[in-house]
Structures are given as structure tokens and as C-alpha cells.
């Protein structure tokens, strides 16, 4: 009798590229690879269908950059899924990668049993997950009725379940704002949105069309300090916070409600990367990459929300396509140039992607500012000399900012420094 290990080994399948995650980034990458002539690939998706989180994002606003029209999430995803089907790109659904080694050896659980795959290159497009109550450590009871915004969205938009009547929302992230509107349209009463920061976390357009349009107040410098309820949530205590985000005594107010929606941040899903030993950036919580979207492991690439949380799916698709071009080059050449120049985030810059470059090719720099700025200049400098810049009337942490950096102005192999200054 064979041991399970031998059986698995006997069935190992070989591909040029294994793509982990069949959401917007994985689909765009697969199509681009296929069009580049790389056909021996596989998309591995753990859900029942391809499409990722877009399946539950039924609101419109997707595709304006990509297709020049306002699509809903399901339509945007379907455009890519249709292309995957037409081209005949191979994929697995209901298949979960449970192990991923630095040698690019994957162990996959599928309904028909365990599979193993060996790939020359691995693309991680696993997206992100929501920060939960546990991560915030809100004190109080543990009743039913505390949901992350995405979970509430799945209940309403996928499973036809209405989880709320009287709602309080903590956090002003875009999904929380979208859900404020969605819950209101479905007949719930959204009392208020509370944000611990002195500025909103979501895009201004979503504050307008999801909160202001429905007369839902947004309170900055406020947070939930206590959760009440034995079985179902009965209410939350909300307090004002000071500059150090500490609750101010005497400002607490009780809001009766049956549902608390949390929209308090997204965290790139990097369990597999971590296990394989991919170096992570504590600022993005995603892998450190070079301008080719290659991680610290040779032949392991990432794009989409697992790399950095994007505001717009159009940008996810574009990033995945750029990455796929580099994966193609990697397969053809066997290696990509060494990336020894670091990009350092300085004054008022929250993070940058990439974090390292080779200095041999022009690249798109993505970044977020760490605080709201007006009339600012974002500068990329080497040896004290500015080599690229972008001027913005307004820069907010909620908006992903991108600029192209041309490398012919590089004069050395020294670090690049990115900073933002108000005029």
C-alpha cells in the first residue's frame, strides 16, 4: 500500500504558472498570460465560482476606467470569466491551496481529493479579508448582530438574508458606506457611522452617495467602546476620542441597535505567503515586491488586494496585467533583473509599492499618504535630486495615488525616497 505522500507525488501535475485565487486579479492575470502565449497554466479558486468578492458587490461604479461604462461587480467579473471560458483557460473551483512551498510546490484540497501541483511560477492573487471585532478588541458582551460589512453584504446580496433592522456602523471604509446605503434600501434604519480617525476612511464620493444622500450622519473622532446584549445585540456605547484615539471620559452615549456593522479596514490575505517565507511589508501587510511584482521568493508574484488594498477593481485588473507581462518575461528568460534599489517612504507617505526596483525599467509607483494633505507635491528623490513628482490639490489616505517613474533620471544605485509636502 502506498502512503498518502507517495500517492500525492504520483499525481503531481506540472504547469508553467499556478494562479492562486480566481478573483479580479487572478482572472486578469490568467487572460493576459494566455494572450502572451503562456497556455500551460491553472487558476485555483476555493469558492464555487470564479469572480471573487465582485459577486457580492452588486452596486455600480466598476469598469469606468477599464470599459468606459458603469458596471456592477457581477458584470465586471463576468466580462473576465467569459474571456476565460472563450480562451479555454484551465481552472479549478472548490479547490483550496493548503500548502505552498518556496519550491513552488502546491498542495490543493478538492472535492475529488488531494492534488499536488508543481509550477515554474506562482501568482498569488488571494485578495484580502476584513478586520474583525477581535482585532479591535472592543469590550463587552458577545451577542449575535456584530458583522463585518462584507459579511452583511454577502447575507443580503448572495444569500437573501436580511441581518438587520436598527444599525450602527463603526468605521467609514468604502464597504461600510456602501452597506449603509444597501441596508437603508432594504428597509433597515442606519442611525450613524462612527469613525475613530479625524478624517473619513472611504472615498468622498461614497460619503456623498451612500451616507449624505440618505441623511446618515458620519461622526469623526468617535468609536464604539462597549457592546451590549445577551443573545442579540441590544446596543452599543459610543465615545468621542482624543488625539491619541483614547476615549474621552463623560462623552459616552448609548445607541440602541440590533446590528453593528464593522468597516474598519482590510488586511491582505497572506497566510500562504507567510508559510512559504515570502517577506512581508508591515505597512501594506502584503508582500514586499519589486517593479516586476516579484516577491522575495524567485518566481513568486503577487498583484491585487493581496499586495495592496485598492480603491477600484479597474486598477486591480491593470496591476495584474502588468504583473502577467513580467511573469511572461520571467518564464522566457528564467530570471528577472536583481532589484537592489530600495524605495523608502518618508514624510507623510504611508507606504509605496513596489518597495524595491532594479533601476532598469520605468515603473508605476503606487502609494498612499498617511494623512490628508492639500496642495501637495509628491516627490521621488535620489541622492537629494527629484526624479519624479506629482502635484495634487488634495491627497487623502482613502485614495490610492499612482505615478510613473522613468528610470533614465536615476544617477546611482542608491535608495529612492518618496515624500509629500504641502505648499
Amino acid at each position, binding site marked *: 500500500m502506498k502512503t498518502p505522500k507517495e500517492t500525492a507525488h504520483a499525481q503531481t501535475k506540472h504547469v508553467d504558472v499556478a494562479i492562486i485565487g480566481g478573483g479580479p486579479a487572478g482572472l486578469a492575470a490568467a487572460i493576459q498570460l494566455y494572450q502572451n502565449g503562456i497556455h500551460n497554466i491553472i487558476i485555483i479558486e476555493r469558492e464555487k465560482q470564479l469572480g471573487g468578492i465582485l*459577486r457580492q458587490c452588486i452596486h455600480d461604479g466598476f469598469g469606468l476606467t477599464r470599459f468606459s461604462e458603469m458596471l456592477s461587480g457581477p458584470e465586471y467579473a463576468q466580462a473576465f470569466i467569459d474571456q476565460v471560458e472563450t480562451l479555454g483557460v484551465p481552472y479549478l473551483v472548490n479547490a483550496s491551496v493548503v500548502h505552498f512551498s518556496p519550491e513552488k510546490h502546491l498542495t490543493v484540497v478538492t472535492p475529488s481529493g488531494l492534488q499536488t501541483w508543481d509550477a515554474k511560477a506562482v501568482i498569488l492573487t488571494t485578495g484580502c479579508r476584513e478586520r474583525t471585532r477581535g482585532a479591535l478588541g472592543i469590550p463587552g458582551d458577545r451577542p449575535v448582530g456584530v458583522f463585518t460589512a462584507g459579511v452583511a453584504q454577502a447575507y443580503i446580496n448572495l444569500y*437573501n438574508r436580511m441581518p438587520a433592522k436598527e444599525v450602527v456602523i463603526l468605521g467609514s471604509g468604502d464597504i461600510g458606506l456602501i452597506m449603509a446605503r444597501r441596508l437603508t434600501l432594504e428597509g433597515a434604519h442606519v442611525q450613524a457611522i462612527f469613525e475613530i480617525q479625524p478624517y473619513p476612511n472611504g472615498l468622498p464620493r461614497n460619503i456623498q452617495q451612500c451616507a449624505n444622500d440618505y441623511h446618515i450622519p458620519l461622526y469623526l473622532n468617535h468609536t464604539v467602546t462597549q457592546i451590549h446584549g445577551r443573545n442579540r445585540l441590544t446596543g452599543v456605547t459610543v465615545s468621542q476620542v482624543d488625539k491619541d484615539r483614547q476615549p474621552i471620559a463623560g462623552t459616552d452615549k448609548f445607541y440602541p441597535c440590533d446590528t453593528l456593522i464593522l468597516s474598519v479596514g482590510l488586511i491582505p490575505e497572506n497566510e500562504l505567503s507567510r508559510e512559504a517565507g515570502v517577506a512581508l511589508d508591515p505597512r501594506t501587510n502584503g508582500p514586499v515586491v519589486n517593479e516586476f511584482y516579484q516577491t522575495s521568493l524567485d518566481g513568486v508574484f503577487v498583484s491585487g488586494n493581496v499586495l495592496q488594498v485598492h480603491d477600484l477593481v479597474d486598477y486591480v485588473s491593470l496591476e495584474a496585467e502588468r504583473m502577467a507581462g513580467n511573469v511572461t518575461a520571467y518564464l522566457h528568460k528564467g530570471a528577472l533583473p536583481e532589484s537592489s534599489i530600495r524605495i523608502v517612504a518618508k514624510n507623510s507617505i504611508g507606504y509605496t509599492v513596489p518597495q524595491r526596483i532594479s533601476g532598469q525599467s520605468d515603473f508605476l509607483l503606487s502609494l498612499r499618504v498617511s494623512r490628508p494633505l492639500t496642495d501637495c507635491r509628491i516627490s521621488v528623490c535620489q541622492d537629494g535630486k527629484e526624479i519624479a513628482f506629482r502635484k495634487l490639490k*488634495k491627497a487623502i489616505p482613502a485614495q490610492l495615488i499612482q505615478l510613473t517613474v522613468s528610470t533614465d533620471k536615476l544617477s546611482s544605485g542608491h535608495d529612492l525616497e518618496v515624500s509629500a509636502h504641502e505648499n
Partner: protein
Amino acid sequence: MKTELTCIICPNSCQLEIESEQTADGLPLIQNVCGAFCPKGVEYARQEILSPCRTISTSIAILHGELPLASVRLTNPIPKDRIFDAIAEIKSYVLEAPVSAGTILISQILGYNSDVIITKTVPRKSSN
């Protein structure tokens, strides 16, 4: 009169400043729109001052489908104060699977130049 608006067309969320005056017939006359990165912002400002319009998305129930719901959306914005009426009308529909994305569910909802289209294909559930 000066009005400040946030453009909702794209994530740039342009901060628009609109200068307008009241004409004799009581309608606002727009003189200038500042702060828009693109012409869509100017058009949005004009519309928002004259008659704010919005699109909306929701779902309808599907019988015997692989999924219990199919998502739908409006193809064009309708007056903001008719959103709840539109939702009520859409909710009165229940369809039998299969349904296909792109199908018009309601043509010219509430008489406006806006259709309700299905945005998710839901195959019929196989009986086994």
C-alpha cells in the same frame, strides 16, 4: 450663489464649486463650475443643481435557481427622490430561473429614461 459638491462619477471624487444665480422663473442658472478634472464633473454639477439623479442597484428573488437572487441595476440615473419608489417596483418582481445578465427586467422604470437590467446570470437548479 456658491455651492460646493463632491462629484460621485469616479473615485477622484472631485470637489466642485458651482456659481449659479436664480433666474426670474425660479430656476438656477449655472455660471461657472470649478474643480472638475473632466467634463463629466461639469455635467454632474449641472444635473445636481437642477435635479439630483442617482442610479441604484438591488436584487430580485429567483425561483428554482442555483442562487436565490439575481442582482439588477438601473441603466441611467433617475431623480433621487424616486429611488425608494423604484426599489418598491423592482421588489414586486420574482422570476423563474434561468435568468441572464443583460436582460431588461423593467423598461423605462417609473416612466424615466432608465431601464432595470439583470446583472447576474442565474442558471436553473438541476433537479437531482
